[in-house]
């Protein structure tokens, strides 16, 4: 295999090395090394940084910041990241979770990217050496992005304000039919005062269900209350077709699962 690994102590030096043609950043390698094993010869140089800051989790001042090299397993077992545990555990089996990083998940094409769906609902900021970008802007531009992601950060909602669901055909571990994450605010009377809903597998990368979000505002979380949101759930989607499910199937079952999540 004509593949060389270059390791740098700092993100700055690794970013500089990534300017060379044929290079790619190496996170946990579950997608990059897999592609190399499958015969992807477009990459000849793998670049990584072992800066300890990339593996740090900081929780302070009501804000959570997770280094890009933090693994799904580390998030799932972190005592203060309970709200993210379900989304982290949704990624692969135990060995994959010990390797798969937050940074890599942001770049994972559908049907992968379950954790990024959770981060999109949480309105996370994606950090690089050049500053921070809202995750929505980051995801839209990720194909052209060469800068190393250093961290993601977000303000955690109240524990009962965040919901996550992954639908797969193989239990307990399987690739997504779809995944959904929602951050809901509720007024004193129980009606929805704010809603952010993110969908996985309903496009080539995680996307917001903006029409459904609007249709939820002022409604109660009852079967009738959520009906308009469910009717609008598929708006703007363009799901993938893969061996797990067709685009048609994903669109058909999206309202069913969104309904279950909202009523749960």
């Amino acid at each position, binding site marked *: 295999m004509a*593949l*060389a690994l270059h390791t740098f102590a700092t993100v700055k030096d690794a970013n500089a090395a990534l300017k060379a043609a044929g290079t790619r950043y190496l996170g946990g*390698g579950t997608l990059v090394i897999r592609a190399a*094993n*499958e015969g992807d010869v477009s990459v000849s140089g793998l670049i990584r940084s072992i800066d300890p800051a990339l593996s740090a989790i900081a929780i302070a001042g009501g804000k959570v910041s997770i280094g890009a090299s933090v693994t799904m397993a580390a998030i799932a077992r972190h005592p203060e990241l309970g709200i993210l545990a379900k989304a982290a555990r949704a990624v692969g*089996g135990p*060995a994959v979770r*010990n390797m798969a990083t937050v940074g890599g998940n942001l770049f994972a094409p559908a049907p992968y990217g379950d954790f990024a769906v959770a981060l999109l609902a949480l309105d996370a900021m994606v950090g690089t050496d050049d500053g921070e970008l809202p995750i929505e802007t980051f995801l839209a531009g990720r194909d052209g992005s060469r800068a190393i992601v250093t961290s993601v950060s977000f303000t955690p909602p109240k524990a009962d304000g965040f919901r996550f669901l992954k639908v797969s055909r193989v239990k307990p571990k399987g690739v997504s039919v779809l995944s959904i994450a929602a951050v809901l605010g509720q007024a004193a009377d129980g009606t929805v005062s704010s809603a952010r809903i993110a969908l996985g597998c309903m496009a080539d990368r995680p996307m917001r269900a903006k029409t459904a979000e609007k249709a939820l505002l002022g409604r109660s979380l009852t079967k009738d209350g959520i009906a308009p949101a469910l009717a609008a759930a598929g708006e703007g989607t363009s799901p993938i077709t893969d061996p797990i499910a067709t685009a048609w199937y994903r669109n058909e079952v999206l309202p069913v699962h969104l309904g279950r999540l909202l009523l749960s």
Partner: protein
Amino acid sequence: MAKVPVQFTLNGSEKAEFIDSGTTLLNALRDKIGDTSPKGGCHQGTCGACSVIIDGELRLSCLTLAETCDGAAITTTLGLAEGGVMHPLQRAFLDTFATQCGFCTPGMIMAAKVLLDHTPNPSRDEVIEALSGNICRCTGYEPIIQAVLRAARANSQNAA
């Protein structure tokens, strides 16, 4: 291509090799070091046959570059037997017919070992979850689940 040095402990003994940069740990173990207990089933992360334990964590050696293991402690199924006596998991796999063609077995045993190291008395659901990244095309899984539960019982009886 330039060779790079890599040093780690494998089943307790020091290994130092010069390898091609970009070599996976699976290829380094099998082709350079001669430990063929991790199997190459898919090289895509999906079958788990290549599972090894690196610094106490289950990893897929087919998706791990050997260079990233410099200084690490690696355990493979080859290192489990002591003085010619099989590890309780190996014994239980034989006794419950949890191995047929045997291709998945070393990966299953690694996944089960990590589970029992952290959770000596796992529930059936915990066993299923721990093995969820490992595929077996022969046994139908039930004998494997039984083997892990039996090894856990044997361990706790020994400890009592």
